[in-house]
């Protein structure tokens, strides 16, 4: 059997040789037969005829031999394919429309399904990740007159729960800190990271790329060790393997858990490792016998620092049982601690970690998933329409083939081949579209934000963005659905034709029941409506994005290099100021640099600092104190306005002379100047600043020397707030005199130590010089998030860009499909009405009349679809309000543009079949009867 199979395969592969052999053998056979008949006395002619009869027909014999020789269906396919290709090429418009429909549908579906599958469905890349849970508590609303209930689970509570739980296989606690300072070989680093119990690494199961992860022995033996993220290792240790074994000092600004802790680097995690507990650049052991933990026990839970609690359920334990147990245990713990909330019942929650990870995007992805299902349905309807149109226009051809003896199965197979070819081409296009779509979504969802901007921009727009890839299984699935539709609708008309009585089929008028046409029209109107709604939504989002990208920010980002300086906390204020001045001077001396400046919070950091309140002339201190939002206080160096390109509207900028010894001066932004001095020039006027640490301290007199343009400093979206701007040297002194703590003085005066450098050329080329200037000024200074300001701006509007692009793509696909739908229906109608059109032309209708006839039909469909779609958009677009910028949900311009643009596209789609109708030859059309 196997041997025969091998022979058949060989025959298939070497068809030509087998064919030649067969020809030769057949010729020999016929020659012998003819010899025989001639011998019996027949003429040459008659002998040849008889020989062929005796053989039973040369072609039939060959066919039979071929069937036995190889796989007959494959052989047929070989001959059907070129035939099908010819057929498809004859109706190029139809073919392209069908392939485009299938490709876009399959591609879009595959891309979105791949994203949804990776983000929502596929298990997290950790062992037994389906049993990985986070334990949180439901915080009841505060009772009136009482302090709000504590929101956190304390470390002590966690430790107690850990010793009592019987539902967990493994438990872990983590504690994240956004700003931890650490000196590194590349200067001071500002890191996000924190403490985790070593079990956390066992639960995540990811081995270290270099060295090791944390182990329980680290806690048991009280080792002070740290594991770094690949990014931190690259950036601050230059990917040096010798970093292992070195020590680093970690000091947190906000937490006592890391106060100058000296830790040995024992490992580096691999790239792409994402800690589901937060953005960690380093991990140090959270010890159960840590003195801090003991202290936690004595602290009232309201003030105690919290931990995030995780666990891995024992196999077979239901989440409900864990909830029950956690509620019981935590209630008991609170009662025994006898804290203020001892008797408040508190429900615990046990949530799968995956649910927590995907929580922010789940609703959006589910909506998109439905949209994709809709698109796939449109695709199937479209393909059905197109194929039915084609099928009915070929019914006569099929009938003729049947009449002259074509086998039915053969004809069905022929049509099947055509449909399969379409599906295959559509599938290939779909694979390409899908791969491109996935790549696009990945790029759009990835936000480049390092250092402080990692926290401001919030990282990638999709969790697990790095894992997203085209899933071949889903491609096959989407392809199978679309192919199924095209095969079904490609072959059904053929089956109908082949079953029909031949004579009937030949004379059948192609006119069908009117309700079928109506159904198709409804389908197309629905498509047009959905596409219109989507296009309006996309138009609004894209319009918002363009306005965002183009908004007047009040500064000129082009040519600016921005970075944050990180200085050791323990260096004094004077030393820090000297370092800053040194760096500014060095940068100013660098060739190509136009201006250099410093601010406590550079563009896009989004920190608002307020300190006390200001009283302009003619207003009372009491009145100003009660205003809800006192102006923001900003600290800059003299060159900052020039470096950022912020226009000075009146008066002057700070100069080197405005130092700590000079009279106190300030600059207002336009909003504040208008607010405080609506009728007069503020230049030269005096503000009284009540900014002391304690009430009753004498206020400061501040002379106004300038007014600057409003700046959207915090973010592009944010409206500018009223601002009072000080020279940082004066501000530091003022805060010291006001009696605020050293730390607060520096927080306002230095802040994030953002430096802006304006160059004549490409700001990225200035990076080495900036690094050198910092290193030369202070060997232990570090740099955080150095980037051209335009790059930062681009990252800061990644989210609106993501929405606009995604919805825009969908809308474009839906619009294109709807246009193809219009084309399909009208093409079908034209085929159906060929005779009618022929009669019209014969009776004297002009080509233009015929075109008008068909286009009018298309126009009605389009109008109906547009009207429905615009109404739908008007109803739905208010849901978009929160995402819009500078446009209202009912923006008439957007609606108008979509209506006009889409109407033109739809009418163009209607024009193609109309032209075909106009080309109908009346005589030929009438002969169809």
């Amino acid at each position, binding site marked *: 059997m196997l041997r025969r199979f091998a022979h058949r395969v060989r*025959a298939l592969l070497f068809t030509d040789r087998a064919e030649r052999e067969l020809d030769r053998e057949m010729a*020999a*056979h016929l020659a*012998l*037969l003819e010899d*025989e008949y001639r011998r019996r006395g027949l003429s040459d002619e008659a002998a040849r005829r008889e020989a062929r009869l005796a053989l039973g027909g040369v072609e039939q*014999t060959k066919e*039979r031999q071929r069937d*036995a*020789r190889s796989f007959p269906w494959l052989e047929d396919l070989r001959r059907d394919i070129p035939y099908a290709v010819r057929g498809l090429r004859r109706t190029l418009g139809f073919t392209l429309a069908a392939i485009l429909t299938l490709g876009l549908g399959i591609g879009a579906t595959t891309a979105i399904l791949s994203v949804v599958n990776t983000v929502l469905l596929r298990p997290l890349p950790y062992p037994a990740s389906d049993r990985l849970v986070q334990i949180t508590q439901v915080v009841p609303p505060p009772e009136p007159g009482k302090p709000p209930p504590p929101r956190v689970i304390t470390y002590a509570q966690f430790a107690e729960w850990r010793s009592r739980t019987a539902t967990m296989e493994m438990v872990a606690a983590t504690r994240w800190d956004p700003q931890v300072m650490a000196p590194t070989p590349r200067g001071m680093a500002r890191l996000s990271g924190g403490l985790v119990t070593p079990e956390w690494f066992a639960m995540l199961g990811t081995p270290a790329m270099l060295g090791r992860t944390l182990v329980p022995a680290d806690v048991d033996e009280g080792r002070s060790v740290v594991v770094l993220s690949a990014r931190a290792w690259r950036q601050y240790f230059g990917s040096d393997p010798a970093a292992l074994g070195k020590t680093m000092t970690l000091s947190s600004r906000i937490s006592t858990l890391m106060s100058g802790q000296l830790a040995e680097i024992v490992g580096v995690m691999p790239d792409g490792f994402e800690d589901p507990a937060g953005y960690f650049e380093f991990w140090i052991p959270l010890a159960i016998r840590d003195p801090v933990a003991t202290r936690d026990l004595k602290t009232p839970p309201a003030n105690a620092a919290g931990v995030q609690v995780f666990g891995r359920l024992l196999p077979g334990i239901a989440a409900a049982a864990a909830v029950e147990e956690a509620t019981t245990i935590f209630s008991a713990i609170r009662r025994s601690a006898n804290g203020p909330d001892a008797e408040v019942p508190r429900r615990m929650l046990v949530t799968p970690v995956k649910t927590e990870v995907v929580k922010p995007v789940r609703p959006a992805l589910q909506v998109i998933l439905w949209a994709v299902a809709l698109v796939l349905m449109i695709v199937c309807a479209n393909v059905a329409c197109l194929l039915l149109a084609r099928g009915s226009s070929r019914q006569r051809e099929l009938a003729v083939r049947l009449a002259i003896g074509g086998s039915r199965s053969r004809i069905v197979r022929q049509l099947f081949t055509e449909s399969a070819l379409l599906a295959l081409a559509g599938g290939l296009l779909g694979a390409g579209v899908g791969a491109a779509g996935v790549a696009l979504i990945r790029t759009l969802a990835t936000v480049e934000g390092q250092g402080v901007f990692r926290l401001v921009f919030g990282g990638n727009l999709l969790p697990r963005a790095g894992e997203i890839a085209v899933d071949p299984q889903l491609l096959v699935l989407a392809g199978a659905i679309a192919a199924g539709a095209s095969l079904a609708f490609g072959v059904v008309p053929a089956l109908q034709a082949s079953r029909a009585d031949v004579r009937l089929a030949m004379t059948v008028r192609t006119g069908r029941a009117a309700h079928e046409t109506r159904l198709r029209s409804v389908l197309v109107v629905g498509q047009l409506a959905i596409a219109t709604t989507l296009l309006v939504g996309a138009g609004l989002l894209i319009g918002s994005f363009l306005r965002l990208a183009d908004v007047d920010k009040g500064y000129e980002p082009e040519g600016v290099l921005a970075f944050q300086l990180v200085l050791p906390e323990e260096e004094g204020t004077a030393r820090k100021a000297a370092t800053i001045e040194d760096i500014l001077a060095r940068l100013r001396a660098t060739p190509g640099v136009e201006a250099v400046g410093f601010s406590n919070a550079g563009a896009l950091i989004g920190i608002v600092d307020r300190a006390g309140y200001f009283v302009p002339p003619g207003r009372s201190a009491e009145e100003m104190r009660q205003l809800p939002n006192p102006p923001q206080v900003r600290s800059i160096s003299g060159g900052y306005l020039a470096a950022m390109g912020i226009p000075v509207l009146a008066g002057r900028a700070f100069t080197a002379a405005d130092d700590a010894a000079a009279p106190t001066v300030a600059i207002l932004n336009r909003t504040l100047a208008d607010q405080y001095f609506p009728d007069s020039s503020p230049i030269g006027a005096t503000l009284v600043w009540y900014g002391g640490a304690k009430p009753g301290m004498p206020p400061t007199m501040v002379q106004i020397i300038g007014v600057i343009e409003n700046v959207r400093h915090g973010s592009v979206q944010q409206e500018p707030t009223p601002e009072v701007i000080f020279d940082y040297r004066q501000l530091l002194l003022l805060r010291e005199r006001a009696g605020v703590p050293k730390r607060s003085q520096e927080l306002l005066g230095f802040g994030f130590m953002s430096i802006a450098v304006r160059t004549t050329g490409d700001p990225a080329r200035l990076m080495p010089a900036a690094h050198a200037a910092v290193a030369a000024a202070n060997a232990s200074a570090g740099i955080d998030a150095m980037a051209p300001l335009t790059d930062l701006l681009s990252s800061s509007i990644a989210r609106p860009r993501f929405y606009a692009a995604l919805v825009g793509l969908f809308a474009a696909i839906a619009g294109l499909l709807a246009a193809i739908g219009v084309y399909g229906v009208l093409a079908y109608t034209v085929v159906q009405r060929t005779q009618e059109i022929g009669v019209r032309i014969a009776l004297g209708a002009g080509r233009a009349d015929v075109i008008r006839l068909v286009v009018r039909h298309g126009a009605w469909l389009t109008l109906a679809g547009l009207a429905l779609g615009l109404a739908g958009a008007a109803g739905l677009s208010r849901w978009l309000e929160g995402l819009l910028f500078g446009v209202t949900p009912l923006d008439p311009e957007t609606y108008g543009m979509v209506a006009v643009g889409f109407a033109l596209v739809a009418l163009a789609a209607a024009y193609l079949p109309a032209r075909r109708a106009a080309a109908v030859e009346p005589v030929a059309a009438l002969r169809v009867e």
Partner: protein
Amino acid sequence: MSSRDTRVELLQGTLDLIILRALETMGPQHAYGLASRLDQVSEHPLLLNQGTLYPALVRLEQKGWIKGEWGRTESNREAKFYAITRSGTRALADQTEKWRRLSGLVDKLLLNEG
């Protein structure tokens, strides 16, 4: 249609058996020779279209039971001569035995029922 009544319908697989048997007894034959021989034996000139042989020949050759080689006829025409192979001979014995058993059984059944 009426001519069909006089034909003997060949049972599935019997043609293979007949060809093998013919080749065994007559030695190598070309397709035309085999067809003539079958006509002769069956005494029914319209037993089959001669072309019917070709699928069977391909099948047998692919199974390795016969082997085709080009040669010359007595009339000096070129033709492909098929000869039975050793495994063909074995298969023939095997199939003949099976056929005998089957036809014996069918005979018996038909006689009894009749």
